[in-house]
């Protein structure tokens, strides 16, 4: 394993208040890290900008998306429901959360979480005398 200082493997357990969200789906995510930022990409098909709620509370990132309700009639074949999406992540400390950017396009959410300046690798010039 590479020297990833970031710990993303711990996802928050659900609190009692989250009970009504048990029907929600956990969206598939990609998370990758570069020298400058951590990028979270989540699949949220059917979620528009108005139905998406992103939360950053201390180091907890919450992604919540509701899908538009539609008349539930006469399904002949059904592989997905209209439940919303919900997922939380514990973020590492070394991010500059104020500079977080989010983009939602074609049902895909891309969150860019820049690293704090102190956490970025720094190149040190060596002066030869």
């Amino acid at each position, binding site marked *: 394993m590479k020297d990833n200082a970031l710990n993303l493997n711990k996802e928050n357990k659900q609190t009692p208040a989250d009970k009504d969200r048990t029907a929600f789906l956990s969206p598939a995510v990609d998370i990758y890290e570069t020298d400058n930022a951590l990028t979270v990409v989540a699949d949220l098909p059917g979620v528009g900008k108005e139905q998406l709620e992103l939360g950053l509370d201390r180091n907890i990132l919450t992604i919540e998306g509701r899908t538009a309700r539609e008349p539930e009639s006469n399904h002949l*074949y059904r592989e997905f429901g209209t439940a919303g999406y919900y997922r939380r992540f514990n973020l590492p400390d070394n991010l500059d959360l104020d500079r977080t950017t989010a983009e939602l396009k074609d*049902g895909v959410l891309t969150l860019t979480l820049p690293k704090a300046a102190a956490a970025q690798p720094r190149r040190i010039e060596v002066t030869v005398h």
Partner: protein
Amino acid sequence: MTRLDIFKDMDGFTREMDQIFRDIGFGRLLEPALAPLMGARSYPRINLRETDESYLIEGQLPGIDPNALEMTILKGTLTLSGERKAAEKGNGSWHRRERNTGKFMRAIDIPAEIDIEKVRADYQDGLLRVTLPKAQSVRPKRIEIQAN
């Protein structure tokens, strides 16, 4: 002897004809724990609904360029194919990789005759919606009863 095919709609669960999903991006399918219930290996996931006038197909296709999506209808089978490109991550490292990438194809059997000329499809928020209007011959028709 003619036989009325009243029970035609009862085989609803055998409609799915064919499903091919190749995950060339990472060489594995969705982790079983992440693949909810049925249809885990089918991509994209679809819902098929029926109204008096039409059949409605909804497919979950997040992050796909609608212009790169290929849809054909032949003899009552709708075929949907395309490719989801892997994200460009530069020289970073992965922490999680759950989103499927690669080529997909799916064939969906349409239960009754449709008016091919009037099929409409639109793509919004990662959802593909296809409306397949039924042919006049299979729509319910009210018959007036003459009282003598």
